[in-house]
């Protein structure tokens, strides 16, 4: 320890309510991002299997662009690009869009793997039983595919939650930007960041538990 420096967590305790609101912000941001990512993921898979080549190519280009550039650059780009097309949004909404696009690109790849794992015969059997195309997609393709990819998809969602800390760069309302404000007022950098690191750990454990509880309820049906 350098002379004269003593750890002082009292500033953190004083700011605890603010930090807990930041946690709520992070969870909200992450859940909204996940929902958007799931929509983009499923939509992307449908487009990826389209008859039209330009649509298929557009999805591939989107996935490769997102997966091979840093999230920080993506969110900066969106932050400056959206106003240019006339969309002036608050930073938190911009952050949700950025998280959704980023998570969506990964979700497309993951869900596609799951859909490919469905046996063609199952689809044909469903159609032969007189189910509509929509019912076949929902009940025979999507649900088993979701169950097959559930571990990798939820793992990706946890990563997305951790990635949301980068949204502080555009000052979206979430835990890291709340912490940065407290840090700049108190100069207790280590204490503040150490505490919110533990909070992030708690949030990811909470989500993991939630995901496994959900899977035990939703995917509870015989496999064979």
């Amino acid at each position: 320890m350098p002379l004269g420096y003593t750890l002082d967590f009292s500033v953190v305790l004083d700011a605890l309510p603010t930090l807990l609101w930041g946690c709520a912000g992070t969870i909200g941001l992450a859940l909204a991002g996940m929902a958007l990512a799931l929509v983009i993921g499923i939509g992307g898979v449908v487009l990826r299997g389209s008859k039209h080549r330009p649509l298929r190519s557009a999805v591939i280009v989107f996935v490769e662009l997102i997966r091979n550039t840093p999230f920080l650059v993506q969110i900066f780009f969106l932050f400056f690009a959206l106003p240019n097309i006339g969309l002036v949004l608050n930073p938190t909404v911009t952050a949700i869009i950025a998280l959704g696009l980023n998570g969506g690109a990964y979700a497309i790849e993951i869900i596609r793997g799951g859909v490919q794992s469905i046996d063609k015969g199952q689809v044909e059997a469903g159609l032969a039983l007189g189910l509509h195309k929509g019912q076949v997609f929902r009940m025979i393709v999507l649900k088993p595919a979701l169950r097959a990819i559930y571990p990798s998809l939820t793992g990706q969602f946890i990563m997305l939650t951790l990635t949301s800390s980068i949204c502080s760069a555009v000052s979206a309302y979430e835990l890291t930007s709340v912490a940065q404000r407290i840090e700049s007022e108190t100069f207790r950098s280590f204490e503040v960041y150490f505490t919110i690191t533990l909070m992030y750990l708690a949030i990811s454990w909470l989500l993991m538990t939630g995901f496994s509880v959900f899977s035990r309820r939703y995917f509870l049906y015989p496999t064979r």
Partner: protein
Amino acid sequence: MGNSFGLGELGFLIQGLKWTVLLAVIAFIGGGIGGLGVALARTSTSWGLRRITAGYIAVFQGTPLLMQLFVIYYGLGLVGLTLPAWLAVAIAFTLHASAFLGEIWRGAIEALPKGQFEAAKALGLHYVPRMRDVILPQALRIALPATIGFLVQLIKGTSLAAIVGFIELARAGQIVSNQTYAPLLVFTVVGAIYFALCWPLSLYGTHIENRISRTAR
């Protein structure tokens, strides 16, 4: 530097790119060494070693990379180590990479058929030659696609050093963007440079993955 995006600005971005590449290389080498240790400890017979490294991995996989950077960056200062910024950041990335590579390689070691371990033991190979000559060469081959995938993550992750003020590619982009008032152009160029760095690696990773799954059949 002037007020428009020209060769000078591009040169400044390339300077930043040098640091991005250097950080990623240091972290990958350091993380490779650390990750090997973590993977061996995770698959060792010692309960204590397995628990400690499992905790290490859980913490680094359960917290944002940005927080790891902050805590290690300020933490090193607290324990009286006044390191240059690049070194503090490199240490943080190395610890991060050790956890992730350790977990990837643990999975690969455990994916090998048990017979490989038993045969090596039956041939009288001790731990070091058993690991070095039999287990690790096969495990690393299985783990190659995931390892390359993580390298891409790591290159993208170095952009977070920008937030602690270290001037690598992303931070250089922010500076140029503030000077030229052309954020869209600048971040397009910055994104394109990252893409040019990461995409070939991603393609190579997919290529190896396909080859491995074909030979496995």
